[in-house]
């Protein structure tokens, strides 16, 4: 086991190296660039034996990734925000083609304007493409989850691409400690690349030609059922990884002080780390609070949510995204998971967009208000505040006549 103190982007790169990836195809975008820079450096130093394609766009990055996976090689890409959006069409393709693939997405806000800081709008927007989506809350989890992602993706019961998400700058660019497993440990954990099909000269097959209405639905149901299978596989992978390395970050969810909780915070990514502090503070103030961190967003942990929140008085779901015209996406999914199964009151806080800081005190105040029965609206935007900048800008706009 080796210990590194580095930015999460570099940690991810080292995990990719340990996973013995054969092809990397990626296009630089802040704040992902250090992932591919570190991979390039590792290849250059002879420490990593893979083919690296410096593609000319993210759409091409995903196209090349699909091509490489189709030949039967473990493949990887990394992107963020607009890069992820640019490959949207092919995200659908990558999931539908039933080939294993892993991609890191550094969660970053969508423009306009150019905001390189973190929120989850980018990956949430790709929710329905069929990708498995995992969210990391620490550098250590990044290291371990990237490796687990290959295991999950290549499992014969799954064969779906996996997106490993972590927050821009808070994780991608901050220096924290992470332990990397030994190569021998990873080799025990990750069997050699396997897939459901490949471009095989000895068994020529055509993939992806025209398919009529009479035949299409089954292809999609198969993908949906693979997501169901993935619930089990994600848990198995986490357990097996713990056996080999001793480290564990939860399976589909990660619970903190939930055993005797009456109220809960629900969050994804680095805000969940902040929420831990909030939980401890609330407990100090006599509130039986707990944290349910959603680790797997797709497949959505329906059962774990229902079990975790079902018996509570209330919960606050924190969304670092907004489904315009509705509410936070995580909030909607949580309510759906509890539908008909619980009388717990659920509330939403949309916050932290575009990298806005969300101190634990905000979470504490929100949950206290909920516990006191004083919360009116189901959805709040607790950290919004119009300021002088908005005023100056609007005055300029109004001069447009």
């Amino acid at each position: 086991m080796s210990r590194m103190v580095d930015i999460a982007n570099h940690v991810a790169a080292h995990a990719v190296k340990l996973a013995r990836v054969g092809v990397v195809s990626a296009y630089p975008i802040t704040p992902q660039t250090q992932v591919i820079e570190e991979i390039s450096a590792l290849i250059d130093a002879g420490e990593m034996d893979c083919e690296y394609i410096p593609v000319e766009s993210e759409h091409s990055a995903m196209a090349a990734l699909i091509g490489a996976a189709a030949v039967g090689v473990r493949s990887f890409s990394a992107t963020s925000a607009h890069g992820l959006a640019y490959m949207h069409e092919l995200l659908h393709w990558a999931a539908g083609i039933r080939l294993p693939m892993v991609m890191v997405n550094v969660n970053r806000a969508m423009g306009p304007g150019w905001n390189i800081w973190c929120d989850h709008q980018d990956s949430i927007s790709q929710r329905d493409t069929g990708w498995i989506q995992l969210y990391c809350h620490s550098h250590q989890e990044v290291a371990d989850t990237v490796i687990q992602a290959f295991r999950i993706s290549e499992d014969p019961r799954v064969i779906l691409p996996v997106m490993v998400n972590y927050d821009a700058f808070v994780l991608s660019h901050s220096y924290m400690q992470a332990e990397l497993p030994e190569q021998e440990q990873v080799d025990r954990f990750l069997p050699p690349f396997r897939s459901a099909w490949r471009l095989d000269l000895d068994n020529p097959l055509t993939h992806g030609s025209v398919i009529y209405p009479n035949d299409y639905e089954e292809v999609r149901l198969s993908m949906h059922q693979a997501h169901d299978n993935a619930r089990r596989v994600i848990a198995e992978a986490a357990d097996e990884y713990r056996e080999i390395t001793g480290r564990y970050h939860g399976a589909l969810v990660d619970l903190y002080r939930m055993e005797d909780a009456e109220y809960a915070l629900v969050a994804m990514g680095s805000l969940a780390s902040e929420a831990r502090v909030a939980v401890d503070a609330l407990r100090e103030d006599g509130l039986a609070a707990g944290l349910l961190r959603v680790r797997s967003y797709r497949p959505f942990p329906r059962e774990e949510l229902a079990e975790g929140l079902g018996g509570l008085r209330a919960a606050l779901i924190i969304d670092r995204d907004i489904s315009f015209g509705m509410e936070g996406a995580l909030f909607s999914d949580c309510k759906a998971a509890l539908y008909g199964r619980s009388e717990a009151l659920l509330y939403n806080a949309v916050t932290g967009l575009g990298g806005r800081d969300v101190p634990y005190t905000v979470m504490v105040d929100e949950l206290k208000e909920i516990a006191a029965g004083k919360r009116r609206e189901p959805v709040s935007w607790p950290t919004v505040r119009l300021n002088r900048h908005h005023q100056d800008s609007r005055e300029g706009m109004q001069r447009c006549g």
Partner: protein
Amino acid sequence: MRLKDFPAEELFLKGSAACAGCPGSMALRVAFKALGRNTLLVVIASCTSVLQSPFPYSALGLPVLNMAFATGGAVGAGVSAAVNYLVKKGELRERPTVLVWAGDGGTYDIGIQALSGAAERGDDFIYVCYNNEAYSNTGTQRSGATPYAAWTSNTISGKKEWRKDVAQIMVAHDLPYVATASLAYPTDFFSKMQKAASIRGTKYIEMLAPCPPGWKFPSDSTVRVSRLAVQTGVWLLYEHENGRTTYTAGTKRIIDGQSEQVPVAEYLKLQGRFRHLFQGEEADGRVAEYQQRIDEVLENLRFASKLRERLMDLEIRR
């Protein structure tokens, strides 16, 4: 290379969904004969995506990856990189040829970025653009390859712009091999495919593909139109290798004066998409405009060829 030396094996399987007289299936047949079984095929959204027949039966006897419209060059890069990796690891004894097959839509327009990116990187595959000068698969809408004055479903009174030339754009990428081909010259196409397969790097071959429903001519005239395109100088057959362009087959014969240059009207009048060029007051003027453009190009080529001959002559004498 003679026709009798072409392999008999058919990797294009009859009973496909192609139109009667389809240039695309014709080109695929010859390409497959040139490359053989040790080939991985990538097909970009185009007529070929459809003519290979719907799930679960395929008219293509090779491993085929169908992919989205804009992705040709990039998928070629990915497949090629993975092949390189497996060869390096000793898991593939013989390196297969990677063949990317795209239409003019996926090459000239939506796919030009990916192609250019791959070409600049020198990713190792053969890229064949079979050019039917429109988006035939979706009902003949205009593309960047649609020639001047051609009818398409969204250039009803004829396209106002002259086409761009992606083969020349590929030459400007300094590729190890760029070539053009015509269905009427199958041995020329066959040897160009085989030469491309023997070279490492990105190879680009553009095949003119006259489309009966799109260009509006009867299904029996596909080869005839392909031949006239070359004989009139509308379509130049060449290969560009090691920084040098050499004209081949029918084009070479025109430049060398061995064949007559056929007036372009003979080519245009066979095609319903140019019907309006022969109607109305401006009819003669517009055909003459076309002829003039071609004459200028061919004159330059004849001149350059004679100049080169003369210079080489002087060299030998010195």
